[in-house]
């Protein structure tokens, strides 16, 4: 049983660990992961990015099939971990303020229609 659209079955192995419900959960996942695990996810996702986005462009928010929703959440996780790989080589902001002290007070829905 797959949870992603058939064309993206190769990414299925990341679904259990890297799909999270909202931005605070994604931030916590990045901060709680090793940079090695983050890189393994990033390096598998990046070459598939254009194909994933081509698929996501064909789907309107507010009307996402479950497997597209899961695919989108993998991409949102890619956005979350990108600075860890591309800027810091570390899950945390290098020499930065502890991101764990911030508190989200307003979120944009991952999947809902926006007006």
């Amino acid at each position, binding site marked *: 049983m797959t949870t992603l659209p058939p064309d993206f079955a190769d990414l299925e192995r990341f679904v259990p660990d890297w799909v999270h419900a909202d931005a605070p959960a994604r931030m916590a996942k990045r901060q709680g992961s090793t940079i090695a695990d983050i890189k393994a996810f990033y390096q598998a996702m990046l070459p598939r990015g254009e194909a994933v*986005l081509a698929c996501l462009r064909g789907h309107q928010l507010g009307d996402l099939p479950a497997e597209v929703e899961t695919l989108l959440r993998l991409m949102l996780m*890619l956005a979350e971990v*990108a*600075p860890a790989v591309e800027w810091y080589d570390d899950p945390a902001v*290098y020499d930065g*303020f502890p991101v764990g002290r911030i508190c989200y007070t*307003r979120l*944009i829905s991952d999947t809902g229609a926006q007006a």
Partner: protein
Amino acid sequence: MNELATPPVPGIGLTARYPEIDTGPVDTAIYHEPAAYAKEMEAIFKRSWFMVGRTEQIARAGDFFTYTLPTFRQEILVCRDRDGHVNAFHNVCTHRGNVVEHRKEGHSQGLFMCRFHGWAFDLKGGLARIRDEEGFFGVDKSCNGLKRMPVGVWQGFIWVCPSDEPYQSLEDFLGEQGRDTAGYPWGACTQSYQFEVEVDCNWKLVNDSPAEVYHIPVLHPNSAAPTMMASGNIMGRLLGTEIKGHHRTNSHYSVMGEPKPVQKLAYFHAAAAQNVAVDDKGYELPKGINPTRSPWWTVDLIQFFPTIGFTLSAGMYTAHQVWPLGPNKSLYQQRVFVRPAKTAAERFGQENTMVEFRDVVMEDFSTLERIQRALDTGQIKQFHYHDHELALRHQHHVVTTILAEWDREQASAQG
């Protein structure tokens, strides 16, 4: 075309345009002394207006939100009445002082009922109902409504003033800076993320953090520097700093460098809010935005003294708001406003923007508590400002000028 291909590197000379501002090192006392902070509270904060939300949050009659003003610890209730007016009240029941509306936001059918004893207030704050009224000794409902708080709307932003009699109108408070930046499509960015964090530092340090880019090549080598220093601007200089009364605007020079791989996906395959590229949305920017009209402009920091600034590009903006909590404690709020996404791909573009902004600010904030410790322990007593740190020098100038004026007012009142 040649001119566009080789952008000029900004020069020095910003400070010289404002001869009233000194160029020497500045005294750091106002960054940590409790007495200075106490004076700032009277002379600056109680005389200012504070942004608390957007009109879109209360689009329909009966819509409301509540908030506790962090600096003043005052409970407020903001709602829209049936005439379409935005009202702000002290969210305090006139019976015995409990919070009237305890929910963060929502929709009222027309009455706000205190959950303590059931007194009920209408959308204009009027005391509509006293439960078991006959047991009271002639409470006059007509003069025991919710106490109004001065409120105003500018470009869809709702502002309140913590003093019963505002020192100046909202329009005067926003001044030329407000007039020159009105007309930007503030309301088009309907989607927003917000986070907040308590930082152990003076409120002015929080303002200082994004207000100079002299630090960009050193503090942000991998994140912001590749675009902001591209094409020879190796010192990361500004296009300009415009001072308007107590307010100021920094214009940022930036050239689209080579984006990082995930940025490329966001910018080129998920058309959505971008924080670097200028897009053409078919409107003329008001004159206070990209005031130098440089083709190399990407972002302005539009600061409304004392506590709110907007990092603003053609397609999106971020509000940076600081609430002083003490001489060396502040609450920082970052609210990223972006245009609505239609497709799932655009939703990815939004997330990329939000994460980038958050992480760059975390880079900035690494310095704040360290600086505050040096201030509190007396290890640094002067700051030396670069020409392109003019915004910081101006803030210092404005604060010290206001406090000196306050001292004179107090002396003449006593004397």
